[in-house]
């Protein structure tokens, strides 16, 4: 395991930041109209409001590591600090379904290791939240579903195993929409998580618990999973960094499958650096996942350049394509202007930004819902109440199956199982499923090929593509609960990336009006296959040079 702190540049970066020693930078990117139409007044006003207290996000993971190694702080103190915050905020935020009882014990073990001068893993003493659909031996893993209430897995997911090997302290299991099916956590079988920026709003989903926990600093970083945007949309809603890696980059072994051909485990952090360190820790080939890639995992964080050393145009020559289709109808105006402002910021950094068109973009959403529902109808068949999970009391077999599933699954899951079963049924298969992989009106396997091709074309002309991560900022709880189509439409920005299997990074880039302190907006950066390194590098520079925004929610600040 590569220790990021050993990289002198990072260490330097870290020290710089601690002394609040930043190079002077133009502070008015958000007013920039270089490229596109001017930003709306609402976003501008808010940006200015927060101008006063600005400092780019620092890497919590590196901070913890440094204070542990220098013996400035003990792991138990750090754990205590997070746990206290968790205790205070959890009744309001409700981001955890289970909080580990072993946090302090594990922190003590880290301290012992330090005392004995033993080698420390890159994530030593770092409190990490794990989405509830990722299997953990010592904590219940329910996937947010009643059908798996109190289910304790027999094995750790590969990603979890790697976290433990890196010394991470798993703080608990985060709330989610049942089996990942939803965009708000309102479809959780247990509770609804609140958005730390405005507790009357949803944190996004399905990894809403993880995003909210990181945003509220209940943990340092968190694992999520992304099938159609489940890491990126909540990252945008909660103002944290979210990374959806390339399909196959991180082993899916131990991730409760929703749609196997689209599912990836992703990461949340409060800075790009943290996200990069976490991603590096969990990436790599796994013999237990036949779809995991054998490609070598580069050292993501060590490639980061200190802001001190940045030239005036650190991203000179980088070709950025802004996806035209993501700025049109159905996307909130303030969101559009924030993204355009972010594009201007990229231009300031030396990028050439041009608009690109992805003709198949609108086809992605229906194709995604057909493919994902079809696969989920199959993947969720194993929850039959026979071997594990909640079993209904029944006189005979058919009622055992149907009662267990009827009582165990929530309405959203039932709806998607029904849709998927329908799409795979004889006579409909050719019409729907095969199309989803191509187009619904053409056949869904075809659409998938089309989407892949149009991304490939766009990424030939551009190094990265950008778009909003969601068409709106976080909305009110209950707002879209009874309007599934409106909620599904919110996934338009993200699903295409899953269909194409590409990596995408979402990072906060500005605010829109709403809530007590404004609502964060996430910028989505999409790269070519296995180009996580580039996205993280660009993201890091973007984040470190973005002035005037501090993404600490009012709850914490």
């Amino acid at each position: 395991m590569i220790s990021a702190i050993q990289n002198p540049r990072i260490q330097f970066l870290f020290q710089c930041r601690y002394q609040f020693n930043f190079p002077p930078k133009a502070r008015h990117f958000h007013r920039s109209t270089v490229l596109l139409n001017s930003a709306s007044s609402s976003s501008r006003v808010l940006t200015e409001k927060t101008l006063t207290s600005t400092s780019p996000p620092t890497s919590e993971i590196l901070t913890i590591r440094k204070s542990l190694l220098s013996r400035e702080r003990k792991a138990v103190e750090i754990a205590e600090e997070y746990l206290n915050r968790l205790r205070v905020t959890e009744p309001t935020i409700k981001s955890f379904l289970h909080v580990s009882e072993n946090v302090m014990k594990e922190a003590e073990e880290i301290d012992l290791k330090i005392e004995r001068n033993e080698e420390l893993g890159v994530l030593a003493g770092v409190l990490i939240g794990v989405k509830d659909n990722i299997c953990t031996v010592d904590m219940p893993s329910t996937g947010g579903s009643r059908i798996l209430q109190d289910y304790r897995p027999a094995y750790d997911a590969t990603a979890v195993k790697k976290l433990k090997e890196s010394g991470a302290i798993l703080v608990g299991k985060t709330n989610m929409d049942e089996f990942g099916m939803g965009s708000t956590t309102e479809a959780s079988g247990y509770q609804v998580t609140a958005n730390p920026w405005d507790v009357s709003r949803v944190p996004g989903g399905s990894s809403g618990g993880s995003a909210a926990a990181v945003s509220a600093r209940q943990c340092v970083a968190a694992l999520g999973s992304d099938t159609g945007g489940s890491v990126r949309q909540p990252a945008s809603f909660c103002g944290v960094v979210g990374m959806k890696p390339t399909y196959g980059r991180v082993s899916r072994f131990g991730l409760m499958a929703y749609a196997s051909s689209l599912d990836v485990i992703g990461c949340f952090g409060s800075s790009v650096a943290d996200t990069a360190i976490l991603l590096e820790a969990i990436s790599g080939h796994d013999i237990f996942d036949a779809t995991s890639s054998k490609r070598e995992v580069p050292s993501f964080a060590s490639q980061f350049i200190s802001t001190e050393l940045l030239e005036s145009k650190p991203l000179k020559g980088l070709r950025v394509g802004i996806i035209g289709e993501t700025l049109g109808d159905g996307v909130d105006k303030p969101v559009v202007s924030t993204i355009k402002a972010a594009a201007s910021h990229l231009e300031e950094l030396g990028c050439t930004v041009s608009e690109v068109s992805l003709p198949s973009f609108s086809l992605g959403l229906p194709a995604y819902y057909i493919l994902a529902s079809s696969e989920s109808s199959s993947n969720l068949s194993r929850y039959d109440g026979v071997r594990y999970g909640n079993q209904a009391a029944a006189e005979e077999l058919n009622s055992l199956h149907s009662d267990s599933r009827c009582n165990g699954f929530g309405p959203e899951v039932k709806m998607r199982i029904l849709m998927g079963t329908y799409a795979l049924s004889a006579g409909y298969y050719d019409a729907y499923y095969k199309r989803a992989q191509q187009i619904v009106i053409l056949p869904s396997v075809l659409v998938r090929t089309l989407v892949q091709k149009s991304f490939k074309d766009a990424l030939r002309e551009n190094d990265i593509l950008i778009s909003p991560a969601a068409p709106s900022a976080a909305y009110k709880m209950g707002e879209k609960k009874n309007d599934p189509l409106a909620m599904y439409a919110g996934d338009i920005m993200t699903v295409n990336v899953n269909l194409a299997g590409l990596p995408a990074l979402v990072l906060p880039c500005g605010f829109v009006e709403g809530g007590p302190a404004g609502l964060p907006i996430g910028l989505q950066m999409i790269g070519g296959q296995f180009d996580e390194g580039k996205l993280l590098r660009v993201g890091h520079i973007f984040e470190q040079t973005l002035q005037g925004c501090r993404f600490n929610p009012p709850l914490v600040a």
Partner: protein
Amino acid sequence: MASLCSRGLRTHSSLLCPSSLFTTRNGVFFCTMQNTQTEKTKTRIGNTKTTQIKASTSTTQVRENEKMLNDYEAVIGIETHVQLSTLTKAFCSCPYNYGSQPNTTVCPICMGLPGALPIFNSKVIECAVKLGLALNCKLAMTSKFDRKQYFYPDLPKGYQISQFDIPIASDGYVDLDLPLEFGGGHRKFGITRVHMEEDAGKLMHSGTGTYSQVDLNRAGVPLLEIVSEPDMRTGIEAAEYAAEIQRLVRYLGVGNGNMQEGSLRCDVNVSVRPTGQTEYGTKVEIKNMNSFSAMHKAIDFEISRQVLLHNQGQADQIVQETRLWEEGAQKTATMRKKEGLADYRYFPEPDLPEVVLTEDYVESIRASLPELPEMKNRRFENMGLSVQDVLLLSNDTNVCNFFESAVDKGADVKMAANWIMGDIAAYLKNEKLSITEIKLTPQELAELISSIKGGIISGKIGKDILFEHIAKGGTVKAVIEEKDLVQAS
């Protein structure tokens, strides 16, 4: 094993006229389902529409039935499941041993725990390619896995990983010779496809019938499913086809082919039609036959049941259904009626990559194939043996090896075959031994035969020596010298 079974076939050859069965049971065929507790609900539905056949007891009726059979032609197709004897299961590293304590060879993968993923055992591909080549199939250089979906407690994931539209091998055939007592003759039966899939677990029903338990040891064990063309016309053809599959599986070493243990399972589809008609009749699936003789009997029973219904103008009573062979009652009975076509909602398995074969790989397997039964039969025929001799010899690999080494040591082909299939086989049968367990060596058999052929000893004395050797061993030369048995010329 195989020889045992073919003996079984012969003893029941009277059943070729299965209408006699009707005479033994005067009454109504009810669909009884007590044997599979979990199918209860389906059975209840089935019972209401039960086909009822009045059977007759008079002997004149029997003769009429025979005549009636001649007016109809049966069409038979067989799906064979061959369990592969790989060291580990198809998608995880669990071993499989028949008869282990329930649920002792299981892991998160074969139990279908949340989050578990399949990892493919490449040995299964090797077996599939071997069998595909042996069945003269075309191989799909790129094939894939699909999910076949249905709910059953012995199916942990709620789907079976199988192959749907692109099987690894297809479009082949088997050549075989029918035994003389069944009229002999050469047959060529088409193979529609061979595909790879995983086995399900087993349900164990409690004695009281109030509950069932699941044993997942067998879940995930690799299978090859071989689907034949509907080329067979009689029970004996079907049984011989299955026996040939068993021989191939054993010759290739891909499985043990043991029917009692369920390592070789045949589901038979039977329909009848008036002779001369080209459209197929309604097909009925028969399951639960655990020997070739049971297959033979079950098929002939089913044919005459269907013919009788046709003859009574009740052809509409033949419905698409699954019937179980009841060994005790010697009849088939409804297990479940199909409510329309089963929709398994197949779709490509997203957890596994495609299976890609290279020419080099296929050629290396082709080169490593052993001599197959059909090739061996032809070789034996060319040595001057009769078809009947060839069939008996090649049925058991051990007998076959014994014969071949005796011939290698210089034994006369015809005489060696006669002795092995005559006196030696009779001895083995009486003593319930296998040919590998007797003291007689192929070398000595060859000596013995040469001595007789050379006129050194008489045939009668030769036989005495043979029995002595089988039991005690020793060399022919020593015995001849010791007992001074040289024939006076």
